[in-house]
C-alpha cells in the first residue's frame, strides 16, 4: 500500500509535466488545427537552456527561468514565421513533415551545441522532502505541481477574462468570423505558437532537476505530452491537465508493478487505444474538441 502511494505521488509529479506539455499541444491545436511534432524539442530547449544559464553561468534562478522561457518563445516565434507561415500548401502531410523536420533540426542543433552528454541540475530549493501518509514528496515535485497548476489556472483566466484571450478563443472557434469582427487572426496564430513554445519551455525547466537533460530527451516527452492531450481530449485545457496526471500515474504504476522496460510502451498503447476507440478523449462525451 505504501509503495503504491509512493508510485502515485511520483506519477503525479511526472504527470504534471505531461500536463504542461499537453496544454501546449492543445493551445496550438485550438488556434491552428496543427499538431506540432516539434513540441517536445521546445521542452528539451527549455531544460538545456536552464542547464546553461543556471547550471553553467550561475545566473540567479528566477532570472534564468525567465530568460530561458523567453528565449524558447522567440524560437517558437521564428519557427512560425520561417517554417509554418511560408508554406504554400498547408496540407496536413506537408505540415507533419515540416514539424518533424524541425524537431530533428532542433535536436541536431542542440547535439552540436551541448554534445551528447547528459546534464543534471540540483532542485530549485533545498527543503527536505515532505511526508504524505508515508510517501515521500520531493521539494522539486512540489514546485512542479504548484507551477503547473498555477500555469493552467492562469491560462484559463487568460482565455476567459482578458480581451486577447477571448480573441484567441474566437479565432479557435471560427477564424473567418473572428477576422470579420476585426480580430487580427494571423497575429493570434503567432501568439498561440509563442505561448505553446513557452509552455514547452516551462515544462522543460521544471523537469530539469529531476531528470538527466540531454539533446534527445525531448522526443519522448513531446510524444507523452501528446498522448496526455489525446487522453484528455485534444484542445481542452482541463482535459489536458487530467490526461497528463492520469498518464503519469498509470505509467508510474506500470513501472512499479511490472518492469521499467514497459514504461514507454504504456503511453503509446494508451495513445493507440484512444486514437482507435475514443478520438475525442475520455472527458468529452461528443467529438467536440473545443474549450
Amino acid at each position, binding site marked *: 500500500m505504501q509503495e503504491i502511494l509512493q508510485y502515485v505521488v511520483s506519477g503525479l509529479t511526472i504527470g504534471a509535466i505531461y500536463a504542461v506539455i499537453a496544454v501546449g499541444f492543445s493551445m496550438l491545436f485550438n488556434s491552428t488545427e*496543427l*499538431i506540432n*511534432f516539434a513540441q517536445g524539442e521546445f521542452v528539451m530547449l527549455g531544460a538545456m537552456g536552464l542547464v546553461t544559464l543556471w547550471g553553467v553561468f550561475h545566473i540567479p534562478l528566477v532570472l534564468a527561468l525567465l530568460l530561458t522561457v523567453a528565449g524558447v518563445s522567440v524560437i517558437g516565434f521564428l519557427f512560425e514565421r520561417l*517554417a509554418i507561415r*511560408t*508554406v*504554400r*500548401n498547408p*496540407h*496536413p*502531410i*506537408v505540415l*507533419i*513533415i*515540416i514539424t*518533424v*523536420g*524541425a*524537431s*530533428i*533540426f*532542433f*535536436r*541536431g*542543433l542542440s*547535439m*552540436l551545441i551541448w554534445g551528447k552528454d547528459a546534464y543534471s541540475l540540483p532542485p530549485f530549493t533545498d527543503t527536505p522532502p515532505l511526508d504524505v501518509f508515508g510517501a515521500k514528496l520531493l521539494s522539486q515535485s512540489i514546485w512542479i505541481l504548484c507551477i503547473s497548476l498555477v500555469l493552467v489556472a492562469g491560462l484559463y483566466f487568460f482565455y476567459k477574462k482578458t480581451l486577447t484571450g477571448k480573441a484567441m478563443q474566437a479565432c479557435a472557434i471560427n477564424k473567418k468570423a473572428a477576422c470579420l469582427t476585426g480580430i487580427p487572426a494571423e497575429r493570434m496564430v503567432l501568439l498561440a505558437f509563442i505561448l505553446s513554445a513557452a509552455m514547452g519551455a516551462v515544462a522543460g525547466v521544471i523537469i530539469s532537476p529531476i531528470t538527466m537533460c540531454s539533446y534527445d530527451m525531448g*522526443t519522448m516527452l513531446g*510524444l507523452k505530452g*501528446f*498522448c496526455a492531450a*489525446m487522453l484528455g481530449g485534444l484542445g481542452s485545457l482541463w482535459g489536458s491537465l487530467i490526461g497528463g496526471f492520469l498518464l503519469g500515474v498509470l505509467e508510474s504504476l506500470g513501472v512499479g508493478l511490472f*518492469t521499467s*522496460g*514497459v514504461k*514507454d*510502451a504504456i503511453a*503509446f*498503447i494508451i*495513445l*493507440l487505444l484512444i*486514437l*482507435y476507440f475514443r*478520438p475525442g478523449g475520455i472527458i468529452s462525451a461528443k467529438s467536440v474538441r473545443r474549450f
Partner: protein
Amino acid sequence: MAIAPHRIIYLIFPSIIILAGLFVQNSYYLQVLTFIGINTLLALGLNLLMGYAGQISLGHAAFYGIGAYTTAVLTVHYGLSPWAALPCALAVSALVALIVGFPTLKLTGYYLGMGTLGFGMIVHIVFREWSDLTGGASGFIGIPPLDLGPISFSSGRNYFYLVWAIVMMCLVVSNRLINSRVGRALRSIHDSEIAAGAMGINTMSLKIRVFVLSAVFSALAGFLYAHFVMFISPGSFDFLVSIRIVTMVVIGGMASIWGALFGATLLTLLPEWLHAFSEFEMVVYGLILMVVMILLPQGLTRGVLDIYEKSKTRNR
C-alpha cells in the same frame, strides 16, 4: 520486335546494374550500392502508401525491423534456411500490417501520423525489451549469409546483384500497379477520399491493401539487410529510421517510382560523401525536410519537372 519507348528504361536500367557490377571493383562502393538498393526498396514501399495513396506513415521502420528480426530469429533460433524464412518474414509483416492497418487507417492527417508513430515506437520497444528472442538492446548476432545452391551471396558482388535484381522486380511491379486500374483508384484516394468513395471505390479495403503491400516491401528490405549485415540491433529500426525513409520519399518526390530510387540514392550517398556529416546528419536531415516541403511540396523530381514545364510553356 518493337519496344514501346517508355519500356526502354527496362532495358537501360538492368544494363546499368550489370555494368556497375562488372566495373566497380572496390568492395566499399559495392557495399554502398547494395545499401542504396535496400533503401530503394524501403522508399518504394512507403512511396506507394504516402505518394500514391496519400496515407502518411511515421512508423515504417517497424516493418523493416519485423522483416529483419523474423528471419534472424527463424534462421538462428530455429535453424530454418533463409529461403524458408523469407516467406515467413513477409507473411508476419503483412499480418501485422493487416491487424494494425484496420484501426489505424481509419485515422487521417495528424492522427494517422501519430498513430503510425506510436505503432513504430511500440514495435521498437518490443525489439529492445524481448531480449530472450531478439537479443535486446545489444543486438542479434550470427545471422547466416545467403546462398542458393552453388552460388554464395556472401561476396559483395553477388549480394549486390541479388539486391538489385529484387529492386528491379519491385520497380516493375510498382510501375505496373500504379498504371493499372488499382493505381488510378489509389491516386483518387490521394486527391479526395470522399470523391473516390463516391465513384464506387472501396477506399478502406484499398488503403489496407496498399498498406500491407508497402509493409511487405519493407520486410523484404529488412530480410536483405539482416542477411547482408549479419548483425541487427533495435537502433537500426528506430524512429529516426522511419523518418529517414519518409525523407527519401519526400526528397525523391512523392508519387514517383523513379523518385524513390533517386531519393534513396541521394540519402544513402549524402552521409558517405560528407565525411564529417555524422555530427551534422540530423541538422541536415531536418533542414532538407523543411526546405523541400516549404519550397517543393511535391518533392525534388516532381518540383523540378514542374518548374521545367512551366518555363517551357512560358517561352512559347
